[in-house]
């Protein structure tokens, strides 16, 4: 068994997602579910319903109408969007914590995920509108592998940093040398275990090397670029800082130049208040 698989097996709390989150993921994957089905799944959990309603009414979505039911929310914002909102509140249970191995304070990883999701959906809106909602989800969850590796980095962080400095390699490359796998690949394995759709598993696994994506180069490229933007802007960044590499093939896939990158940075700055609001409303602990 690979070292990282042992890690997955040894980490009790991440063996499974909350059952409602798994259902929400599967509903999107099959695309056979209606808005009523979605409202039904969400409605089975009063806490989840309340959080969805609260998020839908938050400034992040800028609705002028007050929404009081999940069905109404689906009618206004669409199936995918409401599924994402419900999913985010469930995922925040696993991600809205401190991850000391990465020197990330409580909430930083979740804040980073939401910011990357927001930028990713912005990029998708310009480059491929069919990917807008998937890009948001993929951005939100791209770093779930950190949940796995954080506890092991507690004793290996300095070793990883030393490797980064001595050999001028990216932090995820140092993770590969120490654990046999970086947080991206670990995240891909975890996503697969959790039953995420294949395109999401691929985007998570390839978010540092989108050129290696076999099934969704464009989605992986979008998440990669959004991640790089959030890191440069210092949103939810840990002790690994900017020790990462830009995969320029992602810019070629998306036809993004320097000016456009600057524009996305400004978009992130403009959207930070809404992102913070989304983080606050979706957080459960």
């Amino acid at each position: 068994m690979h070292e990282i698989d042992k890690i997955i097996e040894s980490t009790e709390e991440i063996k499974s997602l909350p059952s409602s989150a798994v259902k929400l993921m599967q509903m999107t994957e099959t695309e056979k579910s209606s808005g009523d089905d979605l409202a039904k799944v969400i409605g089975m959990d009063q806490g989840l319903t309340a959080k969805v309603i609260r998020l839908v009414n938050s400034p992040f979505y800028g609705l002028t109408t007050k929404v009081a039911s999940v069905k109404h929310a689906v009618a206004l914002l669409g199936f995918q969007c409401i599924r994402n909102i419900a999913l985010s509140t469930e995922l925040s249970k696993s991600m809205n914590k401190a991850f000391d191995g990465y020197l990330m304070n409580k909430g930083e990883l979740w804040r980073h995920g939401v910011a990357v999701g927001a930028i990713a959906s912005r990029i998708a809106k310009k480059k491929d509108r069919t990917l807008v909602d998937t890009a948001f989800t993929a951005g939100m969850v791209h770093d779930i592998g950190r949940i796995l590796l954080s506890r092991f980095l507690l004793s290996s962080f300095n070793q990883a940093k030393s490797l980064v400095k001595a050999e001028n390699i990216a932090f995820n490359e140092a993770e590969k040398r120490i654990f046999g796998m970086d947080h991206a690949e670990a995240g891909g394995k975890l996503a697969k275990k959790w039953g995420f759709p294949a395109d999401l598993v691929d985007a998570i696994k390839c978010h540092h090397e989108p050129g290696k994506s076999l099934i969704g180069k464009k989605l992986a490229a979008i998440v990669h670029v959004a991640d790089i933007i959030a890191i440069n802007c210092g949103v939810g960044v840990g002790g690994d800082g900017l020790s990462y590499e830009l995969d320029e093939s992602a810019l070629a896939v998306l036809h993004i130049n320097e000016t456009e990158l600057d524009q996305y940075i400004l978009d992130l700055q403009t959207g930070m208040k809404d992102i913070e609001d989304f983080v606050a409303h979706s957080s459960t602990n």
Partner: protein
Amino acid sequence: MPEININPGELHVSRDEGDTIIAKDLCGSLVVAMHDPTNAVGAMAYIMLPQAPPGHEEGLQFAATAIPRLLNLLIEQGAAKDRIAAKLVGASCLIASGVFSIGKRNVAKAREVLGELGLAIAGEDTGGSHKRNVRFDIKTGKLTIENIAK
């Protein structure tokens, strides 16, 4: 001791000796701090980009706009240009960033603008690939830099 947090795209000027201006989570962004020690006036800007992209209006998130504004505000508060010390902090870079070298571009632009304004750089802690937090003491002009896992 009042502490004033500034976010990306913001600046703050103070002539209150008790003030400390703080900028957190500096990665590719750049802090420019200016101080006149004679009458303890200081100002700090949290800059995100060198200049406004085409079609975007000028703002304090850009070095080209924020730095001249800092100088003007300091002078309005009684600082003398020939006594002002300018310092730069932040502007980290990815290990391999290609066209996306925001940190380097921010520093280059800040140096250019400061040069045009006739201001010398009295201190600089820029580059690297780590995150920084900065505290600026208005009384002394001292910058305290917290390097996160440098």
